[in-house]
C-alpha cells in the first residue's frame, strides 16, 4: 500500500473521535456518581465543554477515558455541591471509592448486544413493559395506569426483570472470559 495516499488524522479529529466514542462510558460514570436523571445531561454537557476547552492538556499517549473520568468526577462533585440540595447524594468518601473503581471499557456496545440477546428470552409483554419504562417523559404513574398495576407492584416487577436481565448479561460475560 502506498502510504502517501493515506490522509493522516488531524489531532483535533482524533480528539473528537475519542470524545464521541467515550460518551456512553462517561454518561455511565457520571450516573454512577450522581444517580439517574436529567441532571446527568447537564453534567455531561459541562464535561464536554471542559474537555474541549482543555483539550491541549490531554496527552494523546495516555488513555483518553481516564483523563475524561477525572473531569467528570470533579464536575459531578461540583454539581452535588451546588445543585443537589433536594436530592439524596453519595458522600465524599463513597464518591472517591466509586471514582477509584473506574471502568475500563471503550463503549457499551458489547453490553448492548448481550442485552438484546437476553431480551429475546423475556416474555414479549414484559419486554414491552420494560422498554416502555425508558420512553422519554414516561412516569411510573402513567405506566402503572396503562398496564393495570399499582405503582409499587410495577416497580417490583420492573426491578425483578432488570435484575434477571443483568444476571443474563453477566453470565454471558463470564462465559466469554
Amino acid at each position, binding site marked *: 500500500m502506498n502510504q502517501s495516499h493515506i490522509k493522516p488524522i488531524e489531532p483535533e479529529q482524533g480528539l473528537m473521535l475519542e470524545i464521541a466514542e467515550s460518551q456512553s462510558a462517561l454518561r455511565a460514570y457520571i450516573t454512577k456518581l450522581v444517580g439517574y436523571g436529567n441532571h446527568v445531561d447537564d453534567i455531561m454537557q459541562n464535561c464536554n465543554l471542559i474537555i474541549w476547552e482543555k483539550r491541549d492538556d490531554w496527552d494523546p499517549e495516555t488513555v483518553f477515558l481516564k483523563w475524561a473520568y477525572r473531569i467528570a468526577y470533579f464536575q459531578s462533585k461540583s454539581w452535588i455541591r451546588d445543585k443537589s440540595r433536594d436530592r439524596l447524594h453519595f458522600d465524599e468518601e463513597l464518591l472517591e471509592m*466509586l471514582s477509584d473503581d473506574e*471502568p475500563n471499557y471503550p463503549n457499551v456496545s458489547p453490553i448492548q448486544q448481550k*442485552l438484546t440477546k437476553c431480551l429475546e428470552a423475556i416474555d414479549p409483554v414484559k419486554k414491552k413493559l*420494560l422498554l416502555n419504562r425508558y*420512553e422519554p417523559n414516561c412516569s411510573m404513574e402513567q405506566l402503572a395506569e396503562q398496564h393495570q398495576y399499582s405503582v409499587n*407492584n410495577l416497580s417490583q416487577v420492573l426491578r425483578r426483570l432488570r435484575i434477571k436481565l*443483568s444476571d443474563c448479561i453477566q453470565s454471558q460475560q463470564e462465559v466469554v472470559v
Partner: protein
Amino acid sequence: MYSIATGGGRLSDSFMKNRELIWKYLDQSITEDEFNELQVALKESQDLRKLYQHEVEVHQTFSELRKSDKSSNVISMNDQDFVLKQPNKLYYLLPWAAALLIASMYLWNLQSSKLKVTLVEANSVDWRGQPVEIGEVFSNRIMHLMRGKIALQFPTKTKAIIEGPAYFQVLNNHSVELSSGLITVEHDGKPGEFFVETPLGKITDLGTKFGVSVGHGTTESLVMTEVIEGEIKVETKDVSQKKHFLEGESVLLTGFHDEVTYQNTFKNEQIKLNFSLEVGENKNEEELNFALGKPVTASGYWNSPRMGEVFPPTAVTDGRYADSGTAGDWSFWLAPQHKNGYFVIDLEKVELIKKIELQNTRNRHYGDRGTENFRIEISTDGENYIEIVKDKLNSIKSWNEASYPFKVIDLEPVPARYIKFIVESHYQSTTKNNSSLHGSGGLSEIRIY
C-alpha cells in the same frame, strides 16, 4: 466483574436486598433511610460497588437501546404492536398465508383437541356423578367433588389441587372453570398460559403459585384469590378493571357476572386463605365413623349469609377438617357471638360407641373462637341424657392442617343414638382490641366409633 455467587454459592439475602436498593436508587424511588443503608453497604463492599457499576451500565444501555429502536423502522410504541414505517413486501401474499395458517390450525386442532389433563393424586375423595380414577384423563364434563382433595396435571406444566366440595370443569389443556370450591395452582410453564375461570372473572397465572376460592353469599358470588408466589392477572367483564397482583397479595371479588367489585380486605382484615399445596396421603378408614353425614341440630349458630359467613352445626359431621371451605360452605360450626352453645347428633339408630374424636376450631386465620371446656352427654331416646365425658380442648395455634389435632377419647362401650356436645367455656380473640367482642364456642369435626 462482580461475583454473582456469594455466601457458599447462594445469593445472600442482604446481597439481594442491596441489589433491590440499587435499582430503587436508579429509579429515583428510594427513601432516605434506604439510601443511607445503600451508601453504607457500598462503602463496605467492593463487590457491591462493582455490581452497582454493572447495573448502571445495564440501566444506561436500556435507554440507548430504546433510542436506537426509535431511530429504526419503528414509528410508535403503545399497547398495540410496533408500527412499521414501510409496508412489508409480502403484504399481498398475506391473505393466502392467513388462509393456509387457518387451515393448518384446523387440521392440527382436529388431531390434538383431545384433553390431556390427568388425575394424578386423590385423598379421601367422594365424587358425585361419574368418578375419575387416578391415572385417568378428564373429559369436559362438569365434575362434582363432594369431599376430599385431588391433584390434576395439565400438559402446560401446571398442577392444580382442588379441594371439595367443589364444582369444576376442565375447559381445555390450559384452563379450568371453578364454579365453587378451592383450587391451588402451581404453574412451571410459560407465564400467562394457564388460567382459572370463575363466576366473576378470569385469573391468569403469570408466575408460579396462586389459589382461588369460589363461594357464595345470599345473592352474590364471592371469589377470593391469593398469590402464594409470583404474579397473577385478574380480569373481569369490565376490561378497565384488569389488575395485577404479586406475591403475598390477595383480593376479594364480589358481585354478579357483569357488576364486580374489588376489595382488599374482608371484615376489615387482609384476606387470607388456607390453600392446599399437597393432596396428602389417602387414609383408608378402617373404622366406621358413625357420625359421618348424620343430621345435627344446635342451640344456634353464627349466621351472616350475605357474605357467606354461615357456620351451621351440620359442618361437624361433614368429614371436612381444619376450618376448610369457601364462603357459604365452611366446614366448621360456630356458636353465635359470645355464646358457648351446644349441638346434638342423631346417629339415626342406637350404636355401641367406644371412642369419640374431636377437632377444635379457631375460625380460620381470625383465631378468635373455639371450645375450651366441654362435656358430652348421650341418650338413646333423645330425652334422657347421661354425662360420659367432661374435658378440655386446647386452642388451635395456627391455620394449617398440621395444627389441628384430633383429641381421642376412649370409652367403655356404651349404647347411644343421640350425642350432645355442650360447650362450657370458649376461646376468644387475644389480639384484637377489646377482646370480649370476639369469641364463641365451636368445633371443626366430631368422629364417633
